[in-house]
């Protein structure tokens, strides 16, 4: 291989070499960091809630008619709503609950094992009726759910009474790291209220505060004139077509209120909206950047081929075959690209250090950098191939002209 002559000829066209090296290096640095940001964000986007998101509708109702200021009327209305929603064709399960999946909203409370001191565990807490677990599609893996009697009694229960609760595995483990949480007591941070764990669910993920996997469900009706009431409906098929019927059914029961319906998939998409936009933006930037760089390499290699027509002609006249010419230009390009890649790896780590320090994000992994380097090598060679082939077509006769 003619490394020596190629290297010496590179030294004669320093401007071109510096340009390609700089372009490749910067491109690699940017691509590696974009990839790293994308992988980091993707991991969060892929996290499932554990619920049957695709078949769930969240309904928020808010009363405005003065008749509904009476708490007893509202309580009765909730029972009517639950019955009515369950009768709509295509509905699989209905729940009245304070849980707001994918809405970055709800209650966070601090709980502890009674009698212990130190940092309490922070957890989401939500009121639930007996139908919640069926509606979300999360089975109770240990213990039991709530009874209708517990739910009916829950909201009016005095503070002194020990309430049954269902918790997620993450909360159970946080409170009782050695296992066996079922049947054990829990209290709020100041121990004014006591609970007993009667059931544990395995699957629960609702990003909110720093408590995404921890939840404590209490059996209680949650309805008030100022905050309304909330239902989750699980459908047999596609939930969207059922929404007008559900709205009509609820307004048929009581029209002195607002009813808002939303599929869980919509809420989830909105929740992920900015992250998805980020991933799309990074992808677009990467693709355009690679395109620009590839065009640049094509352009520069073309000029170098055009400049050296006579030189190619001479080599061909002296016996070099076409393959030798192609090899020459590819090798030359590979050497330049390699300089760029080496410099680019350093730059990538430098840029990553800057981004992690001053902005945010994850550290660059070796695999990401390696993938970026490999991609740039391939792109560099691919971009040089066209001009090199064109160079190989220069006829030997060129060498004899204009001398």
């Amino acid at each position, binding site marked *: 291989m003619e490394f020596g002559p190629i290297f010496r000829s590179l030294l004669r066209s320093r401007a*071109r070499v510096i340009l390609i090296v700089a372009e490749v290096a910067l491109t690699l640095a940017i691509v590696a960091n974009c990839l790293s940001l994308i992988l980091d964000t993707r991991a969060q986007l892929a996290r499932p809630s554990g619920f049957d998101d695709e078949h769930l509708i969240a309904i928020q109702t808010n009363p405005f008619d003065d008749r509904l200021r009476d708490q007893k009327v509202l309580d009765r209305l909730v029972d009517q709503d639950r019955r009515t929603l369950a009768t709509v064709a295509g509905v699989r399960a209905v729940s009245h609950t304070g849980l707001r999946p994918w809405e970055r909203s709800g209650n966070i409370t*601090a709980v502890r094992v009674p009698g212990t001191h130190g940092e309490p565990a922070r957890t989401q807490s939500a009121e639930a009726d007996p139908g919640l677990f069926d509606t979300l599609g999360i089975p109770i893996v240990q213990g039991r759910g709530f009874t209708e009697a517990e739910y009916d009694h829950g909201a009016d229960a005095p503070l002194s009474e020990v309430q049954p609760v269902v918790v997620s595995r993450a909360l159970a483990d946080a409170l009782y790291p050695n296992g066996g949480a079922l049947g054990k007591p829990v209290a709020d*941070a100041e121990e004014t209220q006591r609970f007993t764990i009667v059931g544990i669910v395995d699957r629960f993920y609702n990003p909110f505060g720093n408590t995404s996997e921890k939840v404590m469900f209490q059996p209680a009706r949650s309805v008030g004139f100022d905050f309304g009431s909330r239902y989750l409906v699980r459908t047999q098929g596609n939930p969207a077509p059922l929404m007008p019927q559900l709205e009509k059914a609820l307004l048929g029961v009581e029209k002195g209120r607002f009813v808002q319906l939303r599929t869980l998939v919509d809420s989830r998409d909105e929740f992920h909206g900015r992250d998805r936009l980020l991933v799309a933006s990074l992808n677009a930037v990467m693709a355009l950047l690679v395109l620009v760089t590839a*065009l*640049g390499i094509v352009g520069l290699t073309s000029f170098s081929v055009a400049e050296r027509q006579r030189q190619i002609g001479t080599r061909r006249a002296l016996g070099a075959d076409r393959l030798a010419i192609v090899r020459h230009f590819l090798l030359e390009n590979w050497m330049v690209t390699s300089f760029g890649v080496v410099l680019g790896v350093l730059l990538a780590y430098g840029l990553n250090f800057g981004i992690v320090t001053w902005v945010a994000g994850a550290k660059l992994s070796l695999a990401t950098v390696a993938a970026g380097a490999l991609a740039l090598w391939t792109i560099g060679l691919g971009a040089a191939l066209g001009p090199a082939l064109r160079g190989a077509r220069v006829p030997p006769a060129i060498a004899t002209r204009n001398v």
Partner: protein
Amino acid sequence: MLLYNLRLAWKSVRRYPVLSALILLGIALGVGVSTTFITAYHVLARDPVPGKSGSLHYVRMNSWGVADDPFRQTPPPLITWRDAQELLKSRVPARSTATFASRGTVFPPDGTRPSRQSLRLVTADFFPMFDVPFRYGGPWSREADARPETVAVISSALNDRLFGGANSVGRTIRIEKTELKIVGVLAPWRPRVRAYALVSDPLGAPEPVFLPLALTGPMELRPAEFQMSWRTPAPGEEKLPYASRLLVNEVLFVGFWAELPNPESVRAYRSFVDAYVTEQKKHGRFPHPLNNRVTSVLDLMAELKVVPPQTKALAVISLLFLVVAALNLIGLFLGTVLARASTVGVRRALGASRWTIFVQHLVECELMGLAGGILGVLLSLAGLAVLNRVYGDGPKGVAFFQLDVPMVLAAVVLSLLAGAIAGLYPAWRICAIPPARHLKSQ
């Protein structure tokens, strides 16, 4: 001379159409991508209350009562109703306001179906503090806060819906059970970052209704955004009227802003807040070490990361993209320029000076830069339209990210700069070539 140079540039574009298109595309992509993401960053990071962000200060204090204190480092983002009422009495700040968001049913005057709206509870000072623009009428008076009077300020969108856009000052609307007199209608107003709601939902739209804070008790308005409490209500407390409950409960839901025009007043106000908390400690409140914060708007924005870090990262990355595009350009220009070396040789031999040749090629590069820049701005409009599908206020709402004059100017300067940087070296190379070398080979 310029005209002659422009004509030469046009000729060279026509001679290398594919290459010229590539150059144009390169600049357009570079300027388009960087303008898009720098605009996204600029819209979020710029001063949300121009000229006043330095003087508006947010007040935080740690009233958390139990032994377990999640706010050891940073005090909670909101304060209690009772503390807000005490702070409002201070005359140290030029202006001050306490605020929270609620929700309520608005009954149209014509008796049609009511609607549920977000409400913002504020004091009279709020409007001048945050430069809220009015179309009709104006804010209520400080006396209206004190009494309190049943008055309201509504947004221009709500005024359009309820009153067909007419001047509705003096008319009344009913919210929940209270009849309120409209004293002001806002001009269309959509700050991209709501300085007054930094801790809850800074990118949301302003509420359609503003009410005097003192109506909270009488109208029984509950906080609709987040609230925190460390204390379970004492027995019997739930039975008290709402207005009295507000004065004894320890629920944190109020944001507090003070306008402090100079460093002396900031210092004076800090010692006032410290003195207030020390005084409260005597009554058994504020058990934790003194940890009060009086923070300016821009500092609070930085602390709360109102600009998502990813937006910053993208702005940096897109600037580097522009650098790559410019490097690319140098290469392409170098190619087109050197390909014409023999023509230049003839021109030099016929008497053109180096300077003439240099200027000629620089003009050509600048022309390409400018054309690419204009194309780039158009591209960034498309890019921003994509971003707006996620950030905007719904399909008919305001486009969240918009190019403003400074950003367009920045894009033009950027593209001229790219043209200059990319053109200098090739132009210098071509004018430095001795004419004889190229004449010889003809």
